[in-house]
């Protein structure tokens, strides 16, 4: 059952940050698809809630003049999947959005909630990692912008300071323009499932050579992560099956997978090696490169 004593519904960010400053115990609720599950199961026994659903401004998705993409934290996955700016500029995030839950969940679940929940399995996270996304966090007093990688501290733990609200996810033009990408969610079901592994690969190619490769992984460690070794190896290499095989092997090095009843470490690592190559293969095509067999 939902043990809620107080519930606030501010309509502006200023009201919200003021309420947070005044009541430090308030738990932010956006779509509620993580919060309410935790309350139902008793993981959160009691909570006073601050809903941000009425702050319409937070739903905005826009492309600024300089090419910077800004995604409001309250944008739902349905909205992201249908948004023309996302479709045109970072279609890989659309793929990630569509891999998430089912239609009903996507209608309410927000990208901000997905990130602030801190799960390594969050379907948007690996892609946002690959895109070098930055997060804008606002308090009553001011704001800070940090790389998404710094935001994740551990399983279910994020660097959200008391009084802070995530307002925007920002992606710089140099991080997405001319890149092609692909997201693979590997899970037992095709919908309504948690990823056994999430792989988001993006790359930029010129004359058959990788100018840049970035691979974000979910569920390969306690937080989403990037495959640094594989990425630095890839830079400047010819796009070929051998390069890909090597990238696959190196990708495993960045992982901190463990055995649980859901999957063994060995199997997860095997999947990392295989799926990072498969994701990259499609990314290559989407980046205008030649298809590899």
């Amino acid at each position, binding site marked *: *059952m*939902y043990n809620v004593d107080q519930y606030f519904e501010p309509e502006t960010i200023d009201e919200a940050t003021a309420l947070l400053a005044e009541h430090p115990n308030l738990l932010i609720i956006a779509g509620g698809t993580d919060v309410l599950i935790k309350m139902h199961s008793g993981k959160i026994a009691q909570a006073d809630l601050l809903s941000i659903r009425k702050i319409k401004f937070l739903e905005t998705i826009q492309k600024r003049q300089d090419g910077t993409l800004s995604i409001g934290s309250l944008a739902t996955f349905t909205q992201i999947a249908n948004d023309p700016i996302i479709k045109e500029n970072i279609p890989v995030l659309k793929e990630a959005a569509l891999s998430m839950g089912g239609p009903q969940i996507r209608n309410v679940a927000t990208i901000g909630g997905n990130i602030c929940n801190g799960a390594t399995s969050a379907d948007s996270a690996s892609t946002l990692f690959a895109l070098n996304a930055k997060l804008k966090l606002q308090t009553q007093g001011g704001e800070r912008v940090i790389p998404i990688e710094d935001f994740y501290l551990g399983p279910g733990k994020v660097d959200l300071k008391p009084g802070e609200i995530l307002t925007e996810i920002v992606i710089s033009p140099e991080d997405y323009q001319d890149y092609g990408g692909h997201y693979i969610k590997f899970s037992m079901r*095709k919908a*309504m*499932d948690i990823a056994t592994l999430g792989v988001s690969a993006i790359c930029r190619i010129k004359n058959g050579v990788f100018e840049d490769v970035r691979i974000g992984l979910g569920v390969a460690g306690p937080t989403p992560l990037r495959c640094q070794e594989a990425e630095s190896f890839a830079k400047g290499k010819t796009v070929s099956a051998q390069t890909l095989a090597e990238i696959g092997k190196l990708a495993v090095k960045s992982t901190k997978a463990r055995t649980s009843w859901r999957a063994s470490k060995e*199997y997860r690592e095997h999947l990392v090696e295989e799926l990072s190559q498969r994701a990259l293969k499609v990314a290559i095509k989407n980046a205008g490169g030649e298809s590899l067999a």
Partner: protein
Amino acid sequence: MTVNVVGKRVKRVDAVAKVTGKAKYTDDFMERDMLVGKILRSPYAHAIVKKIDVSKAKALPGVEAVLTYKDVPDNKYATAGHPYSLDPKHRDREDRTILTKKARFVGDEIAAVVATDDLTAEKALKLIDVEYEVLEPVLTPEDALKENAPLIHEEYDNNIISDFGYQIGDVEESFKESDYIFEDEFETSIVQHCHLENHISYAYVDADDRIVIVSSTQIPHICRRIVGQALGIPWGRIRVIKPYIGGGFGNKQDVCLEPLNAALTLAVGGRPVKIDLSREECMIATRTRHAFKYKFKTGVSKDGKLIATHITAISNNGAYASHGHSIAMSAGTKFRPLYSFKSIKFDPVTVYTNLPAAGAMRAYGVPQIKFALESHMENIARKLNMDPIEFRRRNLLGEGYVDPLNGNKVLSCGIHECIAKGKELINWDEKKEKYKNQTGIKRRGLGMACFSYASGTHPVGLELAGARIVLNQDGSVQLQIGATEIGQGSDTVFAQMVAEVLGIPVDMVHVVSTQDTDISPFDTGAYASRQTYVTGMAVKKAALEIKEKILNFVWGMTDIPAEALDIEDANIVYKHSGEVVMPLSKVAMQTYYDTVFAKPITSDTSNNARVNAMSFGVTFAEVEVDIKTGKIEVVEIFNVHDSGKIINPQLAEGQVHGGVSMGIGYALSEEMLFDEKTGKPLNNNLLDYKLPTIMDTPDIGVAFVETHDPTGPFGNKSLGEPPAISPAPAIRNAVLDATGVAFDRIPMTPQRVFEKFKEAKLV
């Protein structure tokens, strides 16, 4: 007999009510000031309550009652939805009480609270102090069978519920005659029904001091009896009402909530109390499907004839007997009408473990044995270098077979035709050719599996079914049955049967969907694929009686002999010409208002079926296996059934769709997982328990081979459970075909497939 309504795609009688939300389920009924009942569950798989202190819980405002094992009757009772037997030896094992001092699985019911609302009830649960003495849990059947294993039920000498089996012929002798002996072992997992509507009931004491229980149950009449037994009160003091229900699949063929619910309302002076299980509770604290381990030793001749089989089985029953050994015996019985063996020895043992209790689930033990047997058949065919279909064909029994143990006779059998049809539908020969010598990452393969099944439980169980029909003033009728509509469509086919016999349109048959033990005719309920067959005959008999009474009444009115008359399209007609004599409504009005002869026409009939028709069928499946990731995808699947005459093709297809999707989950993804040391459930929710979604379900091909069984009311045989039987082995055999890897365990999850492929050096 020519039929007009039977065999047609008649719309479900409850379709509109259900899709518009007008159909009322248990939770839709509101009693004023309904209280909430919640259950305190053991966190330990095996433990004894040393001390329990409920004072803090009782003191919480809004708490109306707190009950422990000390506050409920100490009567031991059995929960299985079996008809009562006058023979004490034939009854189910009575091994539980309403609440328990000894926890036998994680989730066992120690205490219960009644409060004004959910939240207060939950808070109260947390305020109950329990001191447990934790005992060593027994989590596998092997451990349970060890000498000196801790006893789960100390009133018995060991953890064996039963090891009763049988032998037909002499297997040892027959093995000597065999050219080859093949041995295999197989294992299935614990799965759960996952019906949409969780277990829910509410109870109150009415003005006559009787306990009224509204419950989502498949078995209202049995439920009433079991509540009486559990509480030690006369059965007539209990009234059970079953409204619309959101699925059961056998899990509501067990009495899980109602005795406690009755105790809770009594504890608060008869005020209404509702128990509404969460999914997490429902998955562990109702029933599951038994996990089985099978060993097969089979003797075969050079020309591919089966000679003998010795089957050893261990059935993991969990903490309470529930349906117990009946499941193993059902498995050992229902496969027999399919293949010819000179000798069969069946050695099952059903054991307690400290896991959730297993009970009835769609096809009652048969999916397990058929997974094993049909996988075994495939392995044998391959070792003999024989076409697996040809191998099966050579050994099919068919019409005329009389079961040596129960006397059931196969009077209709379309298995050969089913196989031929399935083979054609999936394009077997062409694809087999195409998929030879694959080496890529994604490989395809074809598999098939056959089954046989029964229609009801005769002669093991009593097959009694009641039907009552009343002719209304306008010529329409009310039909009441004791059998329960649980989504399978029985109300609709009964309406078709009545319409057929009476010569009236289906919409003139008003089916009373609710069962109420005070009002409905007696029927043991929805299970064993019995309703269209067993209850259908009761309905037919009642309709025939109504028709006879109508025509006799017309005879009295007109002097036209009843034999010369018939009813067509709600008119009384001359049989020879079809000429209308008078509308049925005119007769009906006379039966109510004729000042001399008025006598409303009714029938109240019962059918005690002492026959049992065997149904047959086959699954053909095509899979694509991703060698690297271990993922198996079912690309095409066809189920072809001989269920006799199909009463309503649309509903029949729906049954098959649901059953096949259940079979796909069984094969590939569903299993309940428990911590190996503590027995704590790991995935009792629908995120972690991988029930396939519609996205994971391919288009399911359905076909019927319509035979006519002389014992069915319209030539029909069972169809409710059969669709869930053969998909899993067919898929397993298709994976073998695609990869050369022979799986002996389901589900074939990607993790397990990966491990097997590594063993086979495919990755």
